[in-house]
């Protein structure tokens, strides 16, 4: 194994016509890694807060996600119950053990049966808390971990994701900046999921169908802060 490592690196250097990089050049590359720079960032996402939320909703709906915007956490259970009813879905919901999801007064809705945990084979509806949203393309960013199991984003037929209105950023770069700021430079979880709409495929005769292997439905609930 060490041999093929040396062989590959040696072949690369030989092809580039040089030996190992001189220290000065290595330092410049280290600096580039340590200070990640944004490149060309489209203007589309660089708008004020209300326009960002409107853009997020428009882009998410363009790719067949559905959205709801509520005034505060207390309004979430009714919105979820209505969504499930409208789609003829069972009212049993698996919740992510996430502070954002836990802050919702689920017991207010007696129509909902809620349990908590990671995603399992028979889960039909999962509710998770997104780390943030990206308006540019109506994308949700979810960070895997004890509070946000990846399995809950992918196994249930219906994925309901909560995102605070204040955490809808304009661009992916802002999302990365926030990940680094809140999790530390080495703080990437096992999986960072960018999710843009529900699962789909066009592999049979280029016919677009939702619900390939992941959720058939993605419902994003945008939660405004409770009025002070």
């Amino acid at each position, binding site marked *: 194994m060490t041999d093929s490592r040396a062989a590959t690196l040696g072949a690369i250097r030989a*092809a580039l016509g040089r030996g190992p990089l001189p220290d000065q*050049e290595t330092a410049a590359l280290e600096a580039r890694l340590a200070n990640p720079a944004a490149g060309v960032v489209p*203007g589309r996402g660089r708008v004020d807060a209300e326009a960002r939320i409107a853009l997020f909703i428009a882009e998410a709906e363009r790719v067949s996600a559905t959205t709801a915007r509520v005034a505060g956490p207390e309004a979430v259970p009714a919105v979820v119950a209505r969504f499930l009813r409208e789609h003829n879905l069972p009212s049993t919901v698996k919740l992510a053990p996430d502070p954002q999801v836990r802050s919702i007064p689920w017991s207010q809705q007696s129509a909902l049966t809620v349990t908590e945990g990671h995603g399992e084979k028979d889960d039909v509806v999962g509710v998770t808390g997104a780390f943030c949203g990206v308006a540019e393309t109506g994308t949700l960013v979810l960070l895997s971990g004890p509070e946000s199991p990846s399995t809950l984003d992918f196994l249930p037929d219906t994925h309901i994701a909560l995102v605070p209105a204040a955490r809808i950023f304009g661009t992916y770069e802002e999302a990365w900046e926030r990940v680094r700021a809140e999790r530390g430079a080495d703080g990437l979880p096992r999986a960072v*999921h960018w999710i843009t709409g529900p699962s789909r495929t066009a592999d049979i005769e280029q016919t677009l169908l939702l619900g390939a292997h992941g959720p058939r439905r993605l419902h994003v609930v945008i939660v405004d802060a409770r009025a002070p």
Partner: protein
Amino acid sequence: MDSTAHTFKSNALEALGDTRLQDALGRLGHGFPVKRKAAVERMPEFEALRDAARDIKDHVLGHLDFYLERFEARVHERGGHVHWCADAAAARETIVGICRAAGARTVTKAKSMIGEEIAINEHLAAAGIEPVETDLGEYIIQLRREPPSHLIAPAIHLAKGDVAEAFRNEHKQFPGDRPLDEPRNLLDEARSVLRERFLAADVGLTGANMLIAETGSIVLVTNEGNADLTHTLPRVHVVVASIEKVVPTLEDATAVLRVLARSATGQEMSVYNTFVTGPRRPDDPDGPDEFHVVLLDNGRSAMLGSEFHDMLRCIRCGACLNHCPVYRSVGGHAYGWVYSGPMGKVLVPNLIGIENAGDLPNASTLCGRCEEVCPMRIPLPRMLRDWRERQFDRGLGPAPARYALKAWAFLARRPALYRRVTALQAAMLGALGRRRGAFRHMPLAGGWTAARDLPAPQGRTFQQMWSDRGGPRS
């Protein structure tokens, strides 16, 4: 997989006569290119994004050793393993070894072109380990035991009836008379069958759209969500990726993602873009215990610094296939090996040798559409010409073409003689063809005139007319 690239001409002839394939290729023409155009028009910064993405990859290729070492160090810090493999055989041995050590009986797979390149499925099967493709298109062609015909739409050559037939033959657990007429029925059946396979798999094998040196992450892009179930559910996640996939930072990966889906399917962004960093963390409720990255060279380092260096920027979006008049006439299988279309014609001779690549470099009109749409601005037509030159230099082309080129070269180096010969030729052909304006047959060019007429020249050469008008001589 054994290559049939050397029989491109007969493969292509067969493809042209295959009406079902032609129907499928017709659908392709109305799909991806139209959607790409719409996506590009929605993104005013698209050309600047292409430049940025190209510059990132160029920067990486010039410092590939550095970024691979940093990537490796980061993977180690996260508790993952990196396996360097010089060629396909080493990669296969490594992957089979990891699967054996894990006691694996089944391996779920997310579509990987490197997996195709190293024919990993055959080798897993030979080792008694069952590989299960999970991308819908890839699953269909696995059942049909055929290779992919497109980078991102591997079953694009098939009609829904072909898929139904494959499912009836292979899914014996369902009633034989179940309805499978609609794509929806077919998808639902595949989803239910594959869901069980996801849950039961011991190892998940994925490719990687990119590797990130800053964090030791690998990037997976799908629309179906199959890659995520593949890396999240089994005990072991194995990634196989070629060395040129590395980019420096999360921001650099983001820049590439902004052009990838738009170029590929015309989506703004693929549904699932996942950045996987190492195995399951101590508190994680899910994810694999082991994380392995198999880093494959297999001819890439030899392309660095060569006239095919720029090909290493390729992100496998498939735009060049979707816009290629040759690909859209013959489909992917005619090219005879894993990669098809313009990118395949340039890459395949690098991987299997120009002597085995037959007519691939000539299977092009050099119309330039591929380079126009390539998000990484790879000069594909120039590289096809480079392969043609190499074929000529090594005496590999067909003999008549070589003699004709030699004769032309002889004349082109003698301008006075060139002028006399071409003037005579133009005058003769002009006189002979005056009545019809074109020739149906032409000695020594029977292959060319078999399918079209040769327009007759008007009797005088360009140089003669230029000097008549008093144009300056250079």
